[in-house]
């Protein structure tokens, strides 16, 4: 069992004071009942401000998403800014962006679980939830882009009178397969570790909540066999979902890279997209954790500066990796001397969208590197919120540069034309509002902190004396 910081404050242990140890959630255990009560209280607490935000977001969705989409369906795709040569615009930018956001949930939850990173424990669910809700937005963006959305079922392979079958040579079909797999798998992966927490919520609820939790906790009681089966299935998922995560954004990148367009036909697009996805996804986790910590009751106990520090460090490494891939993707066409690729690179850095291109580099490289090198700053939650927002702006811009900006330069100069989005802007705002609304409602319906995982982690940590220092040891009880 965990040795609390008080109990190890022994003579001679002056190198590290108990106060320092309390900074770490895993070394600052509270009784499980108390932690349950804290999480339940955070779920039950709402205010007029909360409902005000809910109503505002609902109205935004009604007008910006549903209203604009209805108008676009009624009037046709001509109301968008899409035209030759930019047939792919902000809908695809948004789709790639949201799939990128969805990567962090799996990355943090599965990879850190496999690698036994204990610091992951309190925020895995917050990240997993982001995956599921991010993928919902990505799916909406695909349907927005389809135009004649009522014919979406033509993508599904089934015998039909039209003798139309999906073309499995097409990267779009690979994309459909990869995203479908990822949506289903990540939703199941979100649900499995949630079951014991839903059972905990069931034991502490009355009224409609009791009925809801009784239903979705599936009768879980915590028998040794139930835990064994749950852990077995979760282990299978943790290993299997990681390559699927990598495959999804790689396949998304192939939507572009399989074409012979200047700027798209790149063999490095797969890993470049994956790193970009992780960059925006980890930054989004920082934003979400800040919002949870600052707006939900009792969350300061679970989400601490140490978690921001960890994510900041991860973000710095990923930012460096992104810069490396970006430079690779820039250098090879620059060196190659292909006329249209050189024109495109020049258009990026000196054309009318040059300020966008420069902003991308500032947001994705300069600002993160200036801030994230400093441990004290990494431990400052509001600063990490700022970095998270900046990186996400940078990564959205990166996709904007890759898609409509790059589409401007084709091998037929008489088609060159700047992209001017119109109805795409409210629809983009609508997807952001829907993501926030779903998250807000979920925060009051499901425990955002996996309490059983936190307790499991705390019970595995002990502090022991080595020489004059107090050091942490973690027991491997898996």
């Amino acid at each position, binding site marked *: 069992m965990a040795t609390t910081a008080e109990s190890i404050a022994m003579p001679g242990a002056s190198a590290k004071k108990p106060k320092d140890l309390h900074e770490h959630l895993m070394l600052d255990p509270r009784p499980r009942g108390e932690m349950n009560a804290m999480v339940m209280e955070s779920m039950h607490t709402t205010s007029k401000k909360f409902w005000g935000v809910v109503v505002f977001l609902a109205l935004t969705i009604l007008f910006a998403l549903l209203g604009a989409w209805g108008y676009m369906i009624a009037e046709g795709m001509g109301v968008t800014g899409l035209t030759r040569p930019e047939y792919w615009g902000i809908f695809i930018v948004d789709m790639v962006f949201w799939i990128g956001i969805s990567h962090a949930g799996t990355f943090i939850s599965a990879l850190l679980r496999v690698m036994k990173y204990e610091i992951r424990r309190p925020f895995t669910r917050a990240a997993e939830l982001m995956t599921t809700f991010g993928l919902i937005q990505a799916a909406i963006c695909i349907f927005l882009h389809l135009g004649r959305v009522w014919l979406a079922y033509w993508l599904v392979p089934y015998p039909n009178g039209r003798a139309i079958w*999906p073309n499995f040579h097409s990267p779009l079909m*690979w994309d459909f397969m990869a995203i479908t797999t990822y949506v289903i798998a990540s939703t199941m992966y979100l649900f499995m570790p949630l079951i014991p927490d839903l059972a905990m919520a069931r034991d502490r609820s009355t009224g409609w909540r009791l009925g809801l939790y009784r239903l979705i906790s599936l009768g879980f009681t915590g028998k040794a066999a139930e835990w064994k089966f749950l852990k077995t299935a979760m282990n299978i998922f943790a290993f299997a979902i990681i390559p699927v995560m990598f495959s999804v954004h790689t396949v998304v990148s192939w939507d572009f890279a399989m074409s012979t367009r200047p700027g798209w036909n790149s063999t490095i697009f797969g890993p470049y997209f994956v790193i970009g996805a992780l960059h925006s996804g980890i930054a989004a986790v920082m934003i979400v954790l800040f919002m949870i910590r600052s707006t939900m009751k009792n969350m300061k106990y679970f989400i601490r500066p140490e978690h921001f520090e960890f994510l900041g460090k991860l973000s710095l490494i990923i930012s460096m990796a992104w810069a490396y891939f970006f430079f690779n993707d820039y250098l090879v066409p620059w060196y190659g001397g292909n006329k249209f690729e050189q024109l495109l690179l020049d258009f990026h850095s000196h054309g009318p969208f040059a300020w966008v291109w420069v902003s991308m580099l500032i947001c994705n490289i300069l600002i993160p590197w200036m801030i994230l090198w400093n441990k004290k700053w990494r431990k400052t939650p509001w600063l990490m919120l700022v970095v998270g927002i900046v990186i996400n702006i940078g990564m959205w811009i990166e996709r904007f540069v890759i898609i409509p900006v790059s589409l401007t330069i084709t091998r037929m100069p008489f088609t060159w034309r700047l992209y001017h989005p119109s109805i795409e802007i409210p629809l983009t705002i609508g997807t952001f509002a829907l993501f926030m609304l779903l998250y807000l409602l979920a925060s009051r319906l499901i425990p955002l902190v996996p309490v059983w995982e936190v307790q499991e982690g705390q*019970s595995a940590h002990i502090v022991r004396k080595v020489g004059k220092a107090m050091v942490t040891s973690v027991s491997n009880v898996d």
Partner: protein
Amino acid sequence: MADTLTLLALFADIDPTVDAIDKLHSMGITDEKMDVISGIPFNEEVLGRPDIPTFIPRLAMGGAMIGFIVALFLIFGIPGLYPLNVGGQPVFPIPPFIIIAFELTMLGLMGTAFVGLFLAGHLPTYEPKLYVPELSDGKIALVFPCSVEQQAEFVDAMQSLGAEQVRPVEAKTL
């Protein structure tokens, strides 16, 4: 049997629970007859109990194979029925097959692991259960049958090992 009841002994920590399991073994309660219920997972090694067999990995492998076979049909069966000439590529292309096969194999693997969790754990089930809400507060329960005549003996044994409560329990709707 009419003179048999089920006892639930509640412990605050894992170490006395494990001692109590050993004691129950010595008092004739086999592993098949007792259950350990807890708010966090403890594996069999920690509890000193025999391994709980599970078919979930084998089921998942079966699911992966089914996914692979479906991919074979999609990528080779469909072009066989409706051949498409795409840029001079073969009608039955291998590289795209690898992508489709990977996605469907993984989907089959994870889908059946998920279903396997429910099949193995007999979930969902909404029947009355032997359960007390304190368990999700971190307590650990040992649930075992005993005769009415032996009840006092078992209660004493459990309490002497640190059980916070030892009481007869009946299945209740959760």
